[in-house]
């Protein structure tokens, strides 16, 4: 069955990030988005640990352990970057100044609820990081996730069963099979990857899908 790679999902997200956007890219798959931002756009990447204007990964041997991103990976700064302390960074996040935050998800509900920090397994230590701040603070929250878990459980649901990160915060979900907007407490499918039928997509989803009138095929380069 046709399915986008993580890189392809990240590519698709990148196309939606307009010139002049301030964006925070969460740890994991969202970090890949930085690699696919079109060259003709100036997009300013925020890192929760106090950077605005993150640049590409440094060449091997030129990493600086004091210049890292939220995923604790070495990064660089672009011209026009700024550095600030953590409280100022989260004032920026929580004060609603970021246009977009891209996050991963365990579950998303049709009301836009996001669960991405804890499961129901209490044997492992929980950890929330900046996810709750980002989910509530950014003007738009974009989610990168698979349509289903590895054991074929849908991740897009009527209601989340895992503890929430934030309620009603998700704007748009990019999955391995589709691009889905959250509108009026409904999953509205905008784009579906080639080779997936609407029925197949619905079967992989734990809530009712509405197919947008102008729903198109989700195409990406090979990545």
């Amino acid at each position, binding site marked *: 069955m046709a399915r986008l790679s993580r890189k392809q999902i990240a590519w698709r997200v990148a196309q939606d990030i307009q010139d002049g956007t301030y964006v925070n890219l969460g740890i994991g798959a969202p970090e890949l988005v930085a690699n696919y931002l079109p060259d003709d756009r100036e997009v300013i990447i925020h890192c929760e640990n106090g950077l605005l204007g993150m640049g590409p990964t440094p060449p091997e041997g030129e990493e600086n352990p004091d*210049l890292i991103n939220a995923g604790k990976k070495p990064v660089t700064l672009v011209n026009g970057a700024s550095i600030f*302390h953590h*409280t100022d960074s989260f004032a920026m996040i929580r004060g609603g100044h970021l246009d977009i935050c891209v996050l991963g998800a365990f579950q998303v509900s049709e009301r836009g609820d996001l669960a991405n920090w804890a499961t129901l397994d209490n044997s492992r230590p*929980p950890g*929330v990081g900046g996810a709750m701040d980002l989910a509530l603070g950014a003007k738009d929250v974009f989610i990168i996730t698979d349509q289903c878990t590895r054991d074929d459980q849908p991740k897009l649901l009527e209601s989340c069963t895992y503890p929430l990160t*934030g309620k009603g915060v998700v704007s748009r979900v990019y999955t391995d099979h589709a691009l889905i907007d959250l509108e009026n407490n409904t999953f509205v499918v905008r784009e579906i990857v080639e080779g997936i039928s609407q029925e197949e997509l619905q079967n992989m989803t734990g809530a009712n899908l509405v197919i947008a009138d102008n729903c198109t095929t989700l195409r990406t380069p090979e990545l």
Partner: protein
Amino acid sequence: MIDKRVYDFDAALEGMADGATIMSSGFGAAGAPQELLEAVLDCGFRDLVIISNNAGEGERGLIKLLKEKRIAKVICSFPTSSNSEITKELYAAGLLELEIVPQGTLSERMRAGGAGIGGFYTRTSVDTPLAEGKESRSFEGIDYVLERPLTAQFAFIKAREADRWGNLTYNLSARNFGPTMAMAADTTIVQVDQIVELGDIDPEQVVTPGIYVDRIIEVKGG
């Protein structure tokens, strides 16, 4: 004359005791005061309460203290790291208490502690398990939870430069929690790459004014 420099770790840690509450700067390893933390290990203190974004990273600092079971509790946003299993093991064995605080709330609570704020309302954690037991309140139709200030007996901070008055600069993203923790602790102890002459740091480039700093120890290559 104001001279906050100390020349060995015993002097840096004066007044510390078992059960101390310590804020420790750093985001992962960037800005983590590894040598100060390891001096605590060498001094034998136990039952420590650590306030830090992560419960260590890699092999050094907090990880060493955890391995030696010196830490009773960690208040943090994200306790585990990709390169250490010790936090998971201690937690699973019931040997480590964890208090999970959203990262922005953690930082803002420390700022409140340093700035005389008795409490503040934030949207972060509303409708989540991390808001359980906390007061909530609505302003103009938006829900908030009440968060209280966070202070500590000690702050351990890593900085780039200091003068003898305690003015600090930081290195790039190693700045992270240092400036806020320096405000929020009774005694702020700083390990710096380099001590410079008074007047060498441009007043406009001081990130942490010396008023927040009590002791400075130079740790070359730290």
